[in-house]
């Protein structure tokens, strides 16, 4: 259990930060999620822990939103970043370039550039609508399959696919607008 928690705590923290945009609350959420997992599911096989923990974590994030009533924060950011609405610029994923480099910064200038890219990605992820961000994080960061993601999110597999598709297109559009290639 301890090894599992150690392996996920930072990712869980970043997920919570992306969701609530505030580190103190994110720490509280992660602590709450870890405590719930340890208290309520001590006898679960290790293979079940990732899915269980994600479900608990996402519920804790939702509880936070219910309590603090700040659901509209991301929609404001969405408007500022121009993520909402459809346009006729084509599919941003079609023009995203893929760099085959190892992503290891060689010089201070490269490191600076990478930190700027990372900050831009974080901002773009934070600006995603809640369900899109949740689906994207679970599918592509936690590497859950569509069925598992649907279970964690409590929705249909079709909804997961829709949320993921919208999230990837929105992120690609923002990054392309900033001239960022992954």
């Amino acid at each position, binding site marked *: 259990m301890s090894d599992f928690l150690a392996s996920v705590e*930072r990712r869980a923290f970043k997920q919570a930060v992306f969701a609530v945009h505030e580190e103190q609350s994110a720490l509280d959420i992660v602590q709450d999620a870890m*405590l719930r997992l340890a208290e309520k599911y001590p006898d679960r096989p290790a293979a079940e822990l990732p899915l269980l923990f994600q479900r608990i974590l996402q519920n804790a994030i939702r509880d936070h939103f219910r309590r603090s009533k700040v659901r509209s924060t991301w929609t404001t950011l969405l408007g500022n970043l121009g993520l909402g609405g459809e346009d006729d610029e084509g599919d941003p994923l079609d023009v995203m370039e893929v760099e085959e480099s190892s992503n290891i910064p060689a010089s201070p200038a490269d490191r600076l550039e990478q930190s700027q890219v*990372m900050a831009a*990605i974080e901002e773009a992820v934070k600006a995603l609508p809640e369900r899109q961000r949740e689906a994207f*994080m679970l599918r*592509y960061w936690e590497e859950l399959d569509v069925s598992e993601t649907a279970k964690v999110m409590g929705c249909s597999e079709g909804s997961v696919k829709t949320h993921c598709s919208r999230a990837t297109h929105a992120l690609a559009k923002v990054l392309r607008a900033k001239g960022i290639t992954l």
Partner: protein
Amino acid sequence: MNENEFGSKMKPWLDRSAAAVGEMQATRLRAARLRAMDAYREPVRLLGLVTVNAGTAQTLHYSVFQRAMLFLPIAALIAVLALKSVDDGSDPGDIDAQLLTQELPPDAFLDQDFRSWLGKPQG
């Protein structure tokens, strides 16, 4: 680039973002984990059938038979104690009779010197 490709390209960046968590946050996360582990009790499996956690039977994932097995040791203990109490049941009347039929009068046992003599190790 399709969606899956894009997602897989984002993952290393997100991993890097998680790895770059500040020292203070990392320390607090570690403290939170230790707090969670304080609440965690390693499950105890008895004969592979039951799980006991902090003195509470966790029978959520076991069949009715397995749940019944949890109480088997307790039932066995009660049965053994009951049997033993039946076996040890000596009749006080028998003791009185043995005492009265001895050559030694009962009053002798009230004599302090005789009792101390009985307590001495013999030859």
